[in-house]
């Protein structure tokens, strides 16, 4: 499908039969899923089931072995893919925040629009301040990452991704490294984002949160999608024994 034929009524992210191995270890064994614009999907599953690999593949951080990933009709599994164009469309937030420690919160948010998109400074700064305010970090603009708590750093990371005006946001277990008391502030920021119509793909262990914000939940285990469905039915009427076992352990 050529890039220009994509229309917003088609899936914004469409993954088909994705395979990925690290050496002898096959992490993804034929995964397919589709995300529509404005949808929030959560990917859950035991650790080592390939969730993070899947989400990293969407951003072309990991090359895939076979299969197809279409983002707005653009094939990501193509050596000639324009990674800059892809990453402008797809923002990513990491488990370990990965802020740039030598830059303040504001500079972290401004850096990519300035250096990558070459946008004018005044405009970028205005937008960056607005984004930091949106994630409740007013007054922390000039703090260095080392001076912020984990939850605050993660919210800077979210603002940093949003500064590129992405169409899709990827969240890779963004609360897993946080203290319990700061998890909530990050979840609030993501929920706010989801409700504003941003397309979000989350890998998460927060079942309550997934149930609350997700439009669709995917359960992965050992490299395949075992089961998926809307939260209302997924948590109560799951049929596969692996899903039930996982849910019984975690809920």
């Amino acid at each position, binding site marked *: 499908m050529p890039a220009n034929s994509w229309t917003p009524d088609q899936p914004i992210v469409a993954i088909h039969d994705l395979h990925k191995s690290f050496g002898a270890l096959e992490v993804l064994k034929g995964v397919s899923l589709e995300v529509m614009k404005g949808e929030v999907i959560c990917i859950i599953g035991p650790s080592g089931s390939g969730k993070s690999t899947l989400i990293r593949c969407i951003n072309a951080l990991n090359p895939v072995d076979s299969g197809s990933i279409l983002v707005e009709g653009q094939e990501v599994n193509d050596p000639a893919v324009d990674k800059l164009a892809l990453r*402008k469309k797809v923002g990513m937030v*990491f488990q370990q925040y*990965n802020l*740039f*420690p030598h830059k303040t919160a504001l500079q972290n948010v401004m*850096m990519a629009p300035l250096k*990558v998109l070459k946008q004018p400074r005044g405009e970028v700064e205005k937008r960056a301040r607005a984004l930091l305010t949106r994630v409740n970090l007013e007054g922390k603009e000039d703090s260095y990452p*080392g001076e912020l708590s984990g939850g605050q750093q993660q919210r800077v990371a979210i603002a940093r*991704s949003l500064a*590129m005006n992405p169409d899709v946001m990827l969240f890779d277990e963004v609360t897993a490294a946080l203290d319990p008391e700061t998890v909530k502030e990050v979840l609030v920021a993501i929920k706010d984002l989801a409700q504003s119509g941003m397309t979000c793909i989350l890998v998460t262990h927060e079942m309550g949160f997934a149930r609350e914000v997700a439009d669709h939940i995917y359960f992965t285990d050992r490299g395949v999608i075992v089961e998926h469905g809307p939260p209302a039915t997924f948590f109560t009427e799951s049929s596969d024994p692996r899903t039930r076992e996982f849910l019984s352990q975690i809920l």
Partner: protein
Amino acid sequence: MNAFQQFFFDLSEEHPRWNFIFFYDPVQTERVLSGLWMTIQLSVVCVILSVLIGLVGAWLQGAHSRLVRAVVQGYIQFFRNTPPLIQLLFFYFALGQFTPTYSPDGWLEVPIISNVGWAIISLSFFAGAFNVEIFRAGIEAVPESTREAAESLGMNRLQAFIYVVFPLAFRVSLPALNNNLVNLVKTTTQALAIAVPELLYQMVSIYNDYSTAQNACMVVLFVVYIGLVGILVTGMNAWERAARVPGYGQ
């Protein structure tokens, strides 16, 4: 003669073993100052060149070609593991004999690289070998995940390197770099071996000419070098403090 010169002149009359001749004899003052200037020039040029060599070498060490990496390794090991003095002698005498010469007056034959030139080359490559490893270790100390974050924001490898990896790597490298540069300034004294007219050379020739100036030369030499190194260390430490980011490193 001003009061300062008069004081040291009287001192040399009263105590012949403490003849600070360069404090009252303008000719000797000129020699000391030109020596000091040469030492400073040598240090500054070698510091800059060695840092450039370090950067290029660290970059080449990431090359895909095995041959390139082997050549860089060979260079590092050769310069690190042999005495700098013999390197100087080897460069100036053994390699210097092959440098092309030119003739400004159709009579004299002047090699295109002078002894100062060879000192700069030799000392820069000597310190550069250490700098390559210092920068490489700094780059390796930056976590892969930080680089990935930069790439996920749409930066290409070069942008990620310039804006994220290198600024962090440089901060990590700074203490070791400082140490090496201080060491380089101290090593410039060895250029004496190939008659580069730096401070030590000038001082040694002054006391060879005026044996009574021996003690004075040694005292001043010691004080000046401690001072030079002190200035460098203070400056670099201030730089280190200024470049420190909260919560990173240490």
